[in-house]
């Protein structure tokens, strides 16, 4: 096994890989409530993808997430994890197979970091050596120094605690992770770093992730697919970030993604995704790389008098030129 797959090596066995998730006509009505929290929600998340549930507060996104691991029981409909109905499972056993991370983290204050991370493996009865190996592997995976293992949660910073929360959710190598605004309580800089780390982590561990947030920018950054919910858990649109920004289904979605959706969409596209103009004696302005987003490239272009930008291929060789016209074309694509 290469280190690329290290986080998948200690799985409980039943799910060596990420599992697809399907919500079928899910309805949740709380007793005594006049309107259902979720009327009729159907949604499929392919294995190994991040599905972000986003919407205004009270739209039922957290309820929808908690129906999946049966923290809340649905009124009607069905939820299938890897093709099996979660309704047939014992709640506590099901939850041990689904990673769970929340905004307030909820680390056990009386357990050390190592003990916190080991919570689910201990419930599953792993032997000590396996747990110890897994804990140090996970701390490394979430970029925490090994010496935090013996500290208590109160001795860590907010960002470190969030990382421990993610490590703990990953501990038993679950095929599905539920994350409810896991980065909502940290400062913007730490949040951006944690988001980047989650994406890096996801490239390595490839989980199916249901991620709840009210922040559309976070949704666009993290989601392979975004489900925009409106009041009553109604699915306003379920699409990739690019589709969502290019073609909002209705006014509600358009308003929710914001008037700057064009720019947000540019931020998703890399210079390297565009067919560049051949280099033919054009005036060379500030140089950008193939990895630069079109949004940043546009900003440079505008501040530099709109002359085409020379694009570097990373080895110092000019790969081509990027003009305002090309960016505009990229926007009209699809």
């Amino acid at each position: 096994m290469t280190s690329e797959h290290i986080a998948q090596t200690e799985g409980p066995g039943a799910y060596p890989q990420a599992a697809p998730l399907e919500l079928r006509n899910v309805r949740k009505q709380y007793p005594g409530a006049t309107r259902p929290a979720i009327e009729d929600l159907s949604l499929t998340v392919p294995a190994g993808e991040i599905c972000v549930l986003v919407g205004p507060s009270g739209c039922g996104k957290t309820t929808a997430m908690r129906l999946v691991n049966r923290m809340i029981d649905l009124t009607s409909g069905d939820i299938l994890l890897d093709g099996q109905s979660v309704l047939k499972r014992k709640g506590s056993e099901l939850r041990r197979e689904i990673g769970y991370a929340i905004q307030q983290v909820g680390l056990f204050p009386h357990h050390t970091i190592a003990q916190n991370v080991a919570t689910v493996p201990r419930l599953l009865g792993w032997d000590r050596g396996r747990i110890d190996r897994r804990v140090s592997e996970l701390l490394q995976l979430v970029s925490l120094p090994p010496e935090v293992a013996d500290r208590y949660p109160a001795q860590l910073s907010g960002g470190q605690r969030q990382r421990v929360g993610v490590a703990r959710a990953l501990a038993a190598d679950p095929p599905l992770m539920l994350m409810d605004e896991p980065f909502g309580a940290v400062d913007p800089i730490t949040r951006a770093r944690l988001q980047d780390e989650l994406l890096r982590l996801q490239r390595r561990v490839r989980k199916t992730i249901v991620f709840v947030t009210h922040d559309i920018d976070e949704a666009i950054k993290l989601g392979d697919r975004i489900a925009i919910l409106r009041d009553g858990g109604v699915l306003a649109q379920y699409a990739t970030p690019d589709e969502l920004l290019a073609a909002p289904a209705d006014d509600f979605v358009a308003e929710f993604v914001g008037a700057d959706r064009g720019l947000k969409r540019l931020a998703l596209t890399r210079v390297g995704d565009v067919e560049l103009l051949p280099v033919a004696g054009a005036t060379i302005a500030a140089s950008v790389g193939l990895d630069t987003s079109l949004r940043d490239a546009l900003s440079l272009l505008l501040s530099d008098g709109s002359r085409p930008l020379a694009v570097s291929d990373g080895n110092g060789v000019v790969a081509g030129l990027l003009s305002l016209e090309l960016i505009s074309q990229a926007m009209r694509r699809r």
Partner: protein
Amino acid sequence: MSQAPVIPDFGRGSTCERENGTFCLDWVGKHWHDKLGPALLQHLLLTGIALGVGFAIAFMLALAAHRRGWLATPVVLATGLLYTIPSLALFQLLVPLTGLSRVTAEIALVSYTLLILFRNVLTGLAGVPAEVRDAANGMGLTARQLLWRVELPLALPAIVAGLRIATVTVISLATVAAFVVNEGLGVPILEGLQLTFNTEMIAAGALAVALALAADGLLVLLQRALTPWTRKGVSA
């Protein structure tokens, strides 16, 4: 002609005793084995049983009330009522039922621990942060695992705080048990009250105070050992 002396021989008391000093240390040494030592041991036993039984009852009640919230108010009312009955009156009420026995003394002592212990255990359990409970649920802990692995450990500081108050209260109250049973440090205190000689009462009283302080100190040490996460530098 030898007649019995008019003034009886009081034995070979020390100067301090003969002069009825306020506190005679040599009396304490002389009567450690026949009076004070046994009384101290009986006192320990009286308190220990009362605390053990009281904690068991209060703990069960608190666990029940933790599950079913509506139980808390009636239990607090009932134990609060017990707590307010003056101890001598409670003995008076119990003697016709259980006689002048150790059982009578223990029933009274136990009834005074219940309110404090029940309230502290319940408060400790209720003080567990909601997000900790949510995370525990979300990771698949059963209700029982949540209770024993998370809620009770986190409630320990409150539980030990209750135990400390209950212990000190019972050690002090157990002296009154001498009215119904011939045991404990209350016996030499009562005896001393009927004499002009004060040493016996003072020595027994001081032993009760020392016992209370020692027990309290032990509980503090116990809590420190059991709750390493609450130490200075840990709770930032």
